[in-house]
């Protein structure tokens, strides 16, 4: 019995043992031996195929185990200083410059697949805003962002932050046109409470800072393109996953973003700056568990080694061919 390659490691139930046959129906001895050998071959083939699946996964499983071990190694992480700390300081300065009770608009539009990379920095920023006494209005323009926003608002409420400090503006459909609508019409009539009444008067100009948590289709670029030309007085800060950095870094260089935390090291540096301040946040301090720097450094080293090993041979072949072409 053979398995199709698509069936992978699926194991078929064992075949029932053959019933004893009367002597006259027995096949010649040679044929019996042959069918037995076939059966053994099939079984061993099945075993080999299953174990080849396991064998192929061994390097990845080993990597998982090694990353798990590396997670316990203290003291290894990303080098502090330079651009990494500067990015954290920019965000800290943008939030630190707010007065107590200043309204801040937070757009949570992370992507569920990449949010874990920026979760630490996002929570540090939310804690920082709470520590500085800012009032936060949360809005989302994507379904995934809305799911994250709901979870983060529930987490803040669980930490003892009241609805007067965190206003849920909900989900707004329509993508970039919805951003334009927000810029022109403000938060709209649906939100209630004193905080909502305060920021309804002057539209988006009422807010002192917009913090954009990016990752989905609506992110810092959309805010810079759609909101900034319409509400130029509103400073925009952003937290994005690393893969978006090439797209949004020019906006930080031109000053269109007042702060940009776009890499994991920058997020870690910023979170440690917030945690080091040690002020109370809700019922406790900002003590979020940070991603293991040692595991990430180790993983990067493994990735570099794999890249070098896989591309080294082809690069050497290409160089040799080029050298031969040059000689001829």
């Amino acid at each position, binding site marked *: 019995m053979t398995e199709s390659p*698509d069936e*992978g*490691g699926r194991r078929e139930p064992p075949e029932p043992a053959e019933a004893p046959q009367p002597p006259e129906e027995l096949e010649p001895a040679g044929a019996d031996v042959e069918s037995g050998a076939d059966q053994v071959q099939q079984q061993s083939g099945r075993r080999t195929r299953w174990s*080849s*699946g*396991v064998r*192929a*996964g061994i390097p*990845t*499983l080993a990597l*998982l185990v090694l*990353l*798990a071990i590396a*997670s*316990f190694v203290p003291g290894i992480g990303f080098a502090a200083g330079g651009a990494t700390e500067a990015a954290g300081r920019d965000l800290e300065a943008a939030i630190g410059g707010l007065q107590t009770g200043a309204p801040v608009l937070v757009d949570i539009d992370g992507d569920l*697949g*990449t949010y*874990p*990379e920026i*979760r630490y920095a996002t*929570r540090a920023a939310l804690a920082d805003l709470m520590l500085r006494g800012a009032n936060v209005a949360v809005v989302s323009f994507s*379904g995934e962002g*809305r*799911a994250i926003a709901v*979870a983060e608002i529930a*987490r803040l409420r*669980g930490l003892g932050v009241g609805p007067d400090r965190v206003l849920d503006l*909900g989900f707004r*459909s329509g*993508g*970039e*046109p919805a951003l334009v609508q927000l810029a022109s019409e403000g938060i709209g009539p*649906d939100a209630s409470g004193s905080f909502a009444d305060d920021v309804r008067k002057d539209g988006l100009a009422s807010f002192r800072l917009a913090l954009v948590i990016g990752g989905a289709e609506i992110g810092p*670029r*959309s805010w*810079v*393109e*759609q909101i*900034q*030309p319409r509400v130029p007085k509103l400073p925009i800060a952003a937290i994005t*996953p*690393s*893969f978006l950095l*090439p797209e949004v870094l*020019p906006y930080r*260089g*031109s*000053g*269109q973003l007042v702060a940009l935390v776009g*890499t*994991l090291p920058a997020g870690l540096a910023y979170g440690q700056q917030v945690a080091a301040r040690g002020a109370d946040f809700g019922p406790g301090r900002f003590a*979020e*568990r940070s*991603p*293991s720097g040692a*595991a*990430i450094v180790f*993983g*990067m080293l493994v*990735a570099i080694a794999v890249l070098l090993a896989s591309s080294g041979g082809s690069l050497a072949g290409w160089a040799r061919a080029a050298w031969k072409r040059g000689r001829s």
Partner: protein
Amino acid sequence: MSGFFEAGGAGTVATWLAVLVTLGVWSYLIGERRLLRISQLLLAGLATGYLSLIAIREVLIPQLIKPLAASSAHLELVLDLLLVAVLVAGRWLPRRVVAVPAAILVGGTVGYALGGAVTGTLLPQLAAGMAPRAAGPGDALAGAIGVAITVPVLLSFLHGVPRGRLLTGAATTGRWLMLGGLGAWFGFLLLSRLALLVDRIGFLLGDWLGVLR
């Protein structure tokens, strides 16, 4: 800690479910595909259900049905509803009729995107790319490097145009510079994905097993 699961029975069940699905996806590493398929179907089903709920609860009911039910004076909503109905029934309607809402949809989206790209990105970035007169030698050098990279990369997109030796060399250089940029972006992507893997391991060790603090 992901911090999404509250303490207590519901939180424990949610953590265990997350653990089972994580391990189910990882079982693909040893050639087991059925658990991965179940996880994929679960994700697709949950995402579809969730997005449908959001569309109904946060868009259709508050922005369409409630205003229409409250008053009949919302002509623009009736018109919107008509256009959406035309799009939905587009398969059975003449192409010219369906083209109207499709053109409005595409034209409006492109109009906003293009306008924003010019006023929010192109012009401010051009302005930021110019070194001011009072700039130091560092700024001027950075500007010159920017031009030296941008021009060959743009030239590499010239196709079907007769090119001289100089232009061909510049275009080839531009292609290599672009490849270098893609390599750098790949590095960011690698770091990003590695952070996700480490986060999952942290979830298993910390939230589930409780051995990582």
